[in-house]
């Protein structure tokens, strides 16, 4: 292909990703610049068509970091409208349920003072705050590649080309991406960012940490009957429909305006290749304790996103020459709290403070080690330390994991003198098809339970049709030769959006199958990149602005 002439723009700090961590970093940088009457340039790019378009979370917000960042958030109209008013944790069996008395709940699992929010709307608001402070916020632009200086340090990113056709040639609307250079680039792509994946490898950032483990969260937003609505109610469950050797559970949050967010998280270290997180979620809603909430209700949105579950022992090195990782890109989620917004925000703020200090001393530091120092002296570190043993204990199953969690969190208050290890990387855990039992999922009823396609429809996902497929395969023969032959094509089940489908191969008469990739359905959850047993799938950014358009998620 011909060499493309690319425009270049220079900034002091470039931020990749408009989620809580990236936006908090941008805001903190500008606040410090304004306080010190110093001019700095901060640019934030976001692949979604607008800020919040690709954001999906439960979500319960612990307002600690927000109180520090924008103490007058209430006056500024932050969309924190529903304080948590009551909460329940239940263990479900197929027909029954066991409620955990609140006295037995570890302190991390209490939610007094927290808010049920739409993280997408919260990010939209943060985006407005950032723009008002003078951040250049550019939604609709992907960071396609990392750019490096001759000395190997990060120079910035190149935004994605627009108008490339399916075969890679330039269409009539072709618009080349440009080079964004910065003294420091903050990578804030969220869990399993595709640039972060490259950086971890290139700078060997995980040399001293354990392998990250992940989960997939699938969420629906419902409008329920007023009589079934209790604003501020939080319900978490564990157990059914998952088997006890699979980590996972549900959340059900009553927001404002008769809306209920309901979702299901499955640890991606699950073993059975026949497991479908999507179907488990659909089945969960039919539980007698759950289904009543949705009687006569209407589903209004759907989406999915992978999340980090590894905790502090999986946190990579946070800095490298020319850049840093913040938020879920690094993996700051607190698993026992099931919350990551406050820690992500704080990590962004800490990186911003370190970067601003460096700017003031004329940026002679290439690697922002001060960020790491600040991180390890912050409450994020303390909090994640206390949380570190909960998730790995569930490798012993639900009951022992729960028992251990009680001991670790209540008896030791997270200060047990040992650190548990995660057993495997998530892509290594699948049993082969002859070792596993098929799971017979019930058919959707179209009222309470649905199929994938009608669900993806509600995510308002859109991809320009004529563009290269952004779910790339390292080797085209692997899906059929290994994934299908050995594991019976698990990607058709772990993808919550129906992207992967094994269909009859028209070119062969022997009834053999081929993998069809419906890239247009992709909701950018990154699960395939994580769980593909052969690690053959590599998720890259599609055209800027493409993907889901989540409202209120």
């Amino acid at each position: 292909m011909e060499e493309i002439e690319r425009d270049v723009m220079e900034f002091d700090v470039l931020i990749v990703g408009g989620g809580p961590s990236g936006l908090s970093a941008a805001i903190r940088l500008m606040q410090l610049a304004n306080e010190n009457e110093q001019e700095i340039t901060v640019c934030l790019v976001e692949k979604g068509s607008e800020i919040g378009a690709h954001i999906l979370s439960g979500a319960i917000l612990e307002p600690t970091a927000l109180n520090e960042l924008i103490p007058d958030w209430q006056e500024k109209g932050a969309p924190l409208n529903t304080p948590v008013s009551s909460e329940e944790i239940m263990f479900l069996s197929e027909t029954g349920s066991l409620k955990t008395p609140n006295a037995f709940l570890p302190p991390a699992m209490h939610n007094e003072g927290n808010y049920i929010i739409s993280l997408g709307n919260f990010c939209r608001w943060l985006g407005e705050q950032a723009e008002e402070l003078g951040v250049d916020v550019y939604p609709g632009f992907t960071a396609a590649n990392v750019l490096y200086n001759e000395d190997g340090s990060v120079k910035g990113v190149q935004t994605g080309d627009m108008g490339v056709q399916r075969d890679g040639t330039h269409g009539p609307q072709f618009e080349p991406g440009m080079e964004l250079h910065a003294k420091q680039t903050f990578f804030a792509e969220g869990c399993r960012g595709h640039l972060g994946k490259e950086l971890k490898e290139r700078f060997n950032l995980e040399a001293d940490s354990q392998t990250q483990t992940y989960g997939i969260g699938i969420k629906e937003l419902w409008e329920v009957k007023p009589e079934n609505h209790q604003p501020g109610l939080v319900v978490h469950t564990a157990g059914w429909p998952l088997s006890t050797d699979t980590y996972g559970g549900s959340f059900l949050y009553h927001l404002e305006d008769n809306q209920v967010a309901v979702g299901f998280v499955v640890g991606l270290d699950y073993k059975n290749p026949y497991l479908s997180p999507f179907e488990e979620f659909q089945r969960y809603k039919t539980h007698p304790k759950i289904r009543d909430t949705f009687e006569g209700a209407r589903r209004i949105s759907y989406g999915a996103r992978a999340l980090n579950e590894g905790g502090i022992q999986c946190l990579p090195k946070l800095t490298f020459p020319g850049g840093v990782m913040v938020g879920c890109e690094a993996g700051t989620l607190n698993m026992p709290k099931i919350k990551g917004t406050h820690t992500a925000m704080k990590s962004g703020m800490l990186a911003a403070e370190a970067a601003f200090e460096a700017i003031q001393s004329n940026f002679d530091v290439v690697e922002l080690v001060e960020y790491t120092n600040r991180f390890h002296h912050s409450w994020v570190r303390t909090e994640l330390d206390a949380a570190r043993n909960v998730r790995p204990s569930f490798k012993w199953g639900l009951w022992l994991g729960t028992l251990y969690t009680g001991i670790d969190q209540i008896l030791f208050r997270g200060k047990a003198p040992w650190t548990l290890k995660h057993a495997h990387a998530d892509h290594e855990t699948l049993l082969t098809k002859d070792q596993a039992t098929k799971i017979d999922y019930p058919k959707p009823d179209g009222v309470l339970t649905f199929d994938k396609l009608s669900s993806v429809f509600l995510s308002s996902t859109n991809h320009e049709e004529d563009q290269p497929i952004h779910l790339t395969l390292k080797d085209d023969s692997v899906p059929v030769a290994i994934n299908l032959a050995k594991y019976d094509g698990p990607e058709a089940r772990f993808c919550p959006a129906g992207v992967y489908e094994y269909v009859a191969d028209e070119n062969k008469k022997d009834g053999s199958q081929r993998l069809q990739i419906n890239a247009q359905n992709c909701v950018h959850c990154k699960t395939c990149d994580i769980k593909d047993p052969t690690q053959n799938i590599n998720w890259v950014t599609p055209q800027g602005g493409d993907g889901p358009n989540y409202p209120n998620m």
Partner: protein
Amino acid sequence: MKILVPVKRVIDYSVKARVKSDQSGVELNNVKMSINPFDEIAVEEAIRMKEAGTASEIVVVSIGVEKSQETLRTALAMGADRAILIKAADTVDTDIEPLAVAKLLAKVTEEEAPGMVILGKQAIDNDMNATGQMLSALLGWSQVTYASKITVDGDTLNVTREVDAGLQNITAKLPAVITADLRLNEPRYVKLPNIMKAKKKPMDIKTPEDYGVDVSPRLTITSVVEPPARAAGIKVESVTELMDKLKNEAGVLS
């Protein structure tokens, strides 16, 4: 020649529109909004005319809420020169009707004296398809709707229109109001530096009172409902069964 391009901020085409539970309208809060696709085509056409030397200046105008500024900025980033926002509504739920829009646009046209007004044939939110026609009537200008190709030759327009029977070629005299159809062009992608530059392009903010136009609604929306859900399909085993179902259940064959 100056070109005036009216643009509307509408619910984004990729968003699944949802009717509010009280049936008063479509839910627009926290929903992605963007420039009406047909208006975007109109902006693109004007820019191409400017690039070809036919037009000298492009003024974009929007009538709506404060946030319609974003829509105007999009048009400015594409290549329009300056913008006028007529702030006629406080909430996105207030839709300004075509006649009020046309009256405001007529006033703006009188003030700006463009040689041509190009606008989308309809907005994808309420599909009225009326503003362009009303505007040309108010101005007494030539009216050219559903344009899929426009060439300008002095003060003569040669336009290909998309009509039910196919394509119709017509000529008209300038000044004229042209409404853009889907195949007129494919709008460009906006360049990042141009978004930055667009922030510095001039934007006048006006109100309907400035033009002496009453925008209060003349229509009452009694209710908005979703189309009935399609019943699920079934698989039939044989042609006989299919014929039987078509005759006896669907009632489409006798």
